């Protein structure tokens, strides 16, 4: 390559987009959520964060997005420490990240078109005809151009999730964060969302972080997976590596066993003793 070629001088962007190191987080008066979680999300790859319900997967996303701050450890996004960002810088970072909420979180007073147009209207002065084309293009990508005039209250769960996805990609983000994207969806809607996540990653090169407990679905699309349990990363690797892991908690999660290291019963006093105590006269 010619040494005068400007492309040769352009530094390659770092591979790691999100870097979580030894994060500790707890809410006052409750057991700690994280006790030293470390993981990374690499550029252009789909990273899956899995774990049983209540392990703090959504909390981890909120930490990454700067909505809450860890008590210890560091989280950097695009090479910048999130906790050190001021409000303006934090908002600048969030403009490079799209987030799909568990329930879609569509604005209920706006129709589908306006929901997708919302971030564009707020952050740009795009002429109306151009805005219209952009929004329709994104709605076409998720297969809901025909629903542009509908209100969120009239959409099914799967449709609402797809509209939220169109809204998340309308500003062409570098990273897309999905919070439980498959929850409550029928197999067809689930398949659609799954294909969209894959397509966005493959065609636009968007770095994707998917938080979910749907093992099979994630195993089909993820390049790298992390399994959270007990406030730590219990296992990490490709989905195949996780499936072959010997750790009991990983095996229980991957096989969906009802009892194991993650107990079926919430901690309680001995059942027989409790029944006998209730039955005995005062």
């Amino acid at each position, binding site marked *: 390559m010619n040494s005068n070629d400007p492309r040769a001088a352009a530094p390659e962007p770092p591979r790691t987009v999100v870097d979580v190191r030894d994060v500790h987080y707890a809410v006052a008066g409750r057991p700690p959520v994280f006790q030293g979680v470390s993981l990374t999300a690499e550029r252009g790859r789909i990273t899956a964060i899995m774990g049983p319900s209540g392990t703090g997967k959504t909390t981890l996303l909120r930490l990454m*997005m700067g*909505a809450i701050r860890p008590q210890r450890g560091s989280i950097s996004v695009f090479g910048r420490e999130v906790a050190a960002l001021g409000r303006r810088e934090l*908002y*600048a970072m*969030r*403009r490079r*990240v799209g*987030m799909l*909420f*568990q*329930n879609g*979180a*569509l*604005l*209920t007073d706006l129709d589908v078109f306006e929901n997708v147009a*919302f*971030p564009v209207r*707020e*952050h740009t002065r795009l002429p109306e005809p151009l805005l219209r084309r952009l929004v329709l293009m994104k709605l076409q990508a998720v297969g809901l151009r025909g629903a542009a005039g509908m209100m969120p209250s009239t959409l099914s769960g799967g449709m609402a999730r797809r509209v939220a996805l169109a*809204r998340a990609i309308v*500003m062409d983000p570098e990273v897309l964060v999905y919070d439980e994207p498959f929850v409550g969806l029928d197999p067809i809607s689930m398949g659609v969302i799954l294909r969209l996540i894959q397509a966005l990653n493959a065609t636009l090169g968007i770095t994707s972080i998917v938080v979910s407990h749907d093992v099979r679905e994630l195993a089909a699309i993820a390049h790298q997976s992390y399994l959270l349990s007990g406030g730590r990363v219990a296992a990490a690797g490709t989905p195949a590596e996780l499936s072959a892991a010997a750790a009991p908690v990983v095996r229980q999660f991957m096989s969906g066993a009802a009892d194991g290291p993650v107990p079926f019963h919430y901690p309680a006093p001995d059942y027989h003793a409790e029944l006998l105590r209730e039955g005995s006269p005062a």
Partner: protein
Amino acid sequence: MRLAAPFERAAGSVQRVGRVALFFAQVLGQCGPALAQPRYIVQQIYNAGARSLVIVMLCGLFVGMVLGLQGYNLLQRFGSESALGVAAALGLVKELGPVITALLFAGRAGTSLTSEIGLMRATDQLAAMEMMAVDPLRRVVAPRFLGGVIAMPLLTAIFDGIGIYGSQLVGVGLLGVEPGSFWSQMQSAVESRDINEGLVKSLCFGVACSLMAVYQGYHAEPTAAGVGLATTRTVVISAVLTLLLDYMLTAAFL
């Protein structure tokens, strides 16, 4: 422990007042940027103002009619029933108009604002805005606050006008007060400072009621019960604040 409890409660109250004051300052800081998008404010004036019109007009009419009956009954004892117009106008413009409109506003528009913002919190809409780098204080709270503040004096003026019409309806139409003296005495006795007093009161009540509505909604616990509790708090605190402010402003204007 027993000695500490009242102090803890007092400290908690001071903290709550501080939080409201801080929130008020944040909202005021976002009012400038919100004014750059006037269509959202106009929409909120419609929601808080135009949608409260029927109840305000209806109540204004009945309050004016009662004022006509009571005023006539009282003034007749002193042989000065021709002063009914002045009594009704001053009573409405200075006191009843701003106060009752504020109470109606708190019950109709205030609860609506609180539950709307509270539900937006409960359904992650505010969190979604934050994640889209859009400040909910600027986009959601400030336009609603400004809409309420602007709507209140307009509603009060309508309440006053309809109330005076109601008292005229009863006094002149039913009880036989001379229409000429009803209107001419009102015209000569009601001064601009009386109208200013009503205007200042309605603006202050607008700020208090709108602030309380958006504050309670924004800080509502994101559950059905939490939103319900916040809505109740809006009505109760707005009503108490309105009456407290009314006393202070009346004393200041005397």
